[in-house]
């Protein structure tokens, strides 16, 4: 018979009406995002070797990188000066970014991190292009990595 189901449906909506709504009134009330939320990508500039892996893996080509070769002091006394790559430009265009996180995954030297910050909307779309200074500022909001699970293998090498 259909009737009991119909009445049950009315009961469901009635009970939902009496329960408090789940809506968060965003500008007035702010919800803390979880620690691993994908809010914005932060750049740790000194770790970057301008390897371009992130820019090449980016599905919508929103990462712009330019770099140059430079000399760094030798590691040991009397050694040869090292050749390093440095960043001229590292921009992420957040009007294109789809927050897939592939750049963070592929980065071999831990230069990119997820930060849970999400309040960076802009009136002008061009302002969504974050340069390396602004991406560096986001590093402050990157949370400490979560502790490993009990029994997990220790990481082979500590991050630089």
């Amino acid at each position: 018979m259909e009737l009991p189901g119909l009445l049950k449906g009315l009961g469901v909506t009635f009970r939902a009406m009496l329960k408090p709504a789940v809506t968060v009134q965003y500008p007035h009330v702010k919800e803390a995002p979880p620690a691993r939320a994908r809010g914005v990508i932060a750049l740790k500039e000194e770790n970057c070797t301008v390897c371009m892996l992130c820019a090449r893996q980016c599905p919508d080509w929103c990462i712009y990188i330019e770099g140059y070769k430079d000399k760094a002091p030798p590691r040991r006394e009397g050694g040869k000066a090292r050749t390093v790559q440095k960043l001229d430009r590292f921009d992420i265009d957040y009007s294109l970014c789809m927050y897939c996180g592939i750049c963070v995954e592929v980065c071999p030297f831990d230069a990119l991190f997820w930060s849970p910050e999400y309040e960076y909307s802009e009136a002008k779309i061009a302002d969504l292009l974050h340069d390396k200074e602004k991406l560096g500022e986001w590093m402050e909001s990157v949370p400490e990595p979560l502790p490993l699970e009990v029994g997990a293998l220790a990481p082979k090498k500590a991050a630089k």
Partner: protein
Amino acid sequence: MIGIDLAYWQSTGIKVAVVLGIIPAGALIFGYVFLLKMMSHMQSRLGPMEAGFHGSLQLVADGLKFLQKEDIFPAKADRFVFGIAPLVVLMSTFLLYVVIPAGPDLIVEDLDTGIFFAMAVSSLSVLGILMAGWASANKYSLIGALRAAGQLIAYELPLILAVVGVIVQAGTMSMQGIVMAQADGEIFGIGAIGNPYLFTQFFGFVIFLIAAQAELTQAPFDMPVAESELVAGYMTEYTGFRFLFFFMAEFGTAFAFAAIGATLFLGGWYVPGVEGDLANLLGPFVLFAKIMAVAFLIFWIRFSYPRLREDQLQTLAWKYLIPLSLLNIAATGILKVAL
């Protein structure tokens, strides 16, 4: 009972002004309380919260927005018919308010055939809807209008037949007469709360609610405006204040049907123990409370059920509601004579 004598033109002017005020007010109240707030909470969300206290001015803002919009006529539209169709629909809503009593003296015109008149003018809206659908020169609009016509004709019958049970029991078609019959009535010899026909005409009330739901083209009977199939049916091509007229007519008619339901089955403006001038004063508030109760049922069903299929809609009307309402009339008639 009120000791002021007004000339005919004065009283008519007041009545017109009151009805002109009630329709937008009723539409706003229903739109806010049910469409914006009740539906939102049934879906575990808050609905509009910014315009005014808890979004109470949201519909006023929306109305102002509609007034500012361009009055667009489609290139191939029949301009004259397209233009007046919303007015025809709104006019049917206005005429409904002629016979709804809000107190012993608070009625525009206590016609002897009051409920008959209300049922008759409520069907006028079909004309406006057909005009709108035809004149839009748009196939979605035309299909929507034809669906509306088929649906409104099918559900007119159970609606009127459900009302006939009340008329038989009350012995009058006048709306005031029906209110007084309920006020003076008794249930099994107990006359303390009168006899709201909700008890004796319960099946009539259920059939009336279902048919009114279809007459108002509310879900689950909203095929004429089905968004996912017909965009917005006969309203597809309308913008600006003409669309606003359709919106006001929809909720103004819902208000009127809730008022008719409250008058026929819940005793209208009558509340036990209130007589004379006090009834004139309290009547509108009592009626309003009863309207909200009936409207709650209508909108509760609207927000809970998904849309029926077109053939299911027709089956429900012709195979179930009409025979049941005929049975209801027969039972009422037999009991009326026997008791």
